[in-house]
């Protein structure tokens, strides 16, 4: 282990933990933001046989020449085995029942895995407004397993989201069934900078493992509801040398995601 290695960041732990949930040869619907880097890391490591699908109608065949900034990035045009319509991916892969897993970022998630990327406050006269669903509602409605990836922050984990952009288990699994959503669909895991959560029984989020630099207590204090903890809760394995190397040197060598270079934070952009 080289002494000079930079320490593992919370974001890196989140990305690696999420990537480990991906089984080789599975078919993935991949949303914008963290899911992009998570799925490419998995493909470069233990899951070379995954098929990565984006909502705009792309089925990737290979690792793009540079990491896509979002799923509509034109770099995808030269890395795809199929480019077509949204019907090709959201329609025939996802609604058609051919996807194994969907990966989503989120602004906030509640205890039943419901995601809000729409607004704070009343929908008709919101206090704050976010972008909206995009394909996220489709992912969460239709995928057999949805994995939600977001930075841990107490404001992001309310008891109940103000607006359900993407349905989790609503008020519990029975409620999801009543709505007409298909059986054997719904949130599978939430991965944050502090922990890994799964959904059991009535579709409630349960802490399954925590970032080794954090603790059960910190995670529980980082949500607004009474978080259940799995009886076998354990610390997450930190990224291996190989995982970290591939992530930093191969998947995102310019730090577009890992160092938020694509956001130009604190940089002057003049045109």
């Amino acid at each position: 282990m080289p002494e000079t290695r930079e320490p593992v960041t919370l974001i890196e732990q989140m990305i690696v933990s999420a990537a480990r949930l991906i089984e080789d040869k599975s078919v993935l619907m991949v949303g914008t933001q963290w899911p992009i880097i998570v799925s490419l890391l998995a493909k470069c490591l233990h899951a070379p046989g995954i098929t990565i699908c984006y909502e705009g109608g792309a089925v990737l065949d290979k690792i793009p020449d540079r990491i896509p900034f979002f799923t509509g990035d034109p770099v995808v045009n030269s890395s795809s085995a199929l480019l077509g319509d949204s019907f090709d991916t959201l329609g025939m892969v996802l609604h058609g029942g051919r996807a194994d897993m969907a990966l989503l970022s989120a602004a906030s998630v509640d205890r039943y895995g419901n995601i809000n990327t729409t607004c704070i406050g009343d929908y008709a006269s919101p206090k704050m407004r976010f972008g909206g669903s995009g394909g996220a509602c489709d992912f969460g409605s239709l995928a057999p397993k949805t994995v939600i990836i977001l930075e841990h922050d107490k404001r992001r984990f309310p008891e109940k989201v103000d607006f359900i952009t993407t349905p989790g288990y609503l008020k519990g699994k029975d409620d999801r069934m009543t709505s007409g959503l298909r059986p054997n669909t719904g949130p599978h895991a939430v991965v944050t900078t502090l922990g890994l959560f799964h959904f059991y029984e009535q579709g409630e989020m349960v802490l399954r493992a925590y970032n080794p630099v954090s603790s059960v207590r910190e995670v529980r204090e980082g949500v607004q509801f009474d978080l259940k903890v799995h009886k076998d809760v354990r610390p997450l394995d930190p990224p291996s040398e190989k995982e970290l190397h591939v992530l930093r040197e191969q998947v995102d060598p310019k730090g577009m995601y890992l160092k938020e270079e694509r956001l130009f934070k604190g940089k002057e952009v003049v045109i």
Partner: protein
Amino acid sequence: MQEGKKANMSKDNKLMSMSEAIDRYVADGDVLYLGGFIQQEPFAAAHEIIRQGKRDLTVSKCAALILVDQMIGAGVISHLITTFTWNPLPATAHCFVRALTKHAPRKVEIEEYSILALNLAYFAGALDLPYVATKTMLGSGFDWEQSNSGVKNRLKFEESPFTGERVCLVPPIKHDVGIMQVQRSDPYGNAQAWGMLGEVRYGLQSCEKLIICAEEIVDTDIVIRDPNRTLVPAFRVSAVVKEPWGSHPAPMAGYYDMDWPYNAYYEKETRTEELFREFMKKWVYGIRDRKDYLKLLGQDRLEALRPERFESDPVSYGRLTTHFGVPHA
């Protein structure tokens, strides 16, 4: 015969012979979709299905020409989903007519739609939509509710909750196996086709397993350089068969014309069951595979079917390697 979906990963080489593909992936009693809207028909695959003596197949074919007629005559089909079945000459498809009027060589249940309705049913099947409402088929014989025609199909009719008008509801049609002959595929099943595509995009995607027969096997690089032409991505495909001239006597855009006189020949040679058996002995049962079939046809006949090249200009999808092409502070 059933193989798990996980077998169909994007990077498995799925090249195999036609006889292996049909043996492994088509089972007695299966619901088959056969692709190709008049062009690109899977004749080589259909002949192998007949040779292997598959039984009680449901065959779903939007435009059924003499390929389906042969399968009916050979007795492999028990249920036919279609919009029409004929010899495009135009002439009678004799086996089809014998099956429906005389149950010879066996009874075939028929389930008919219009082309648009069947496209909508395949579309609903491909996306697994509960149903699609349309304004076609109303009042016709296919509208069993109004016409009392004795037609059996899957349609329902109701008043639109939006406008109160009477609408026809088309539910999904799905298939166990889909087979189509395309221009090219890579060894993994990234299949590309061009020309008049009819219903095939949604027909193929409404299938659990796919057998892709291709005029040419190409490198994946060729596919990636023109991904808008991809009909199905590799992970959906179970088998890839290299089978040049596999659609004869139907046409393949850019590769060969329809062998038009063959339609007249077929009409004449299949007017009775006995004649049909002779025809099949010569063209299907008496030979082992497509290579034998092409020998029977002769190289001269094949060469005469080749079109002049009529080529697209290359287009660029653009390759981007830098993170920010433009200067920034």
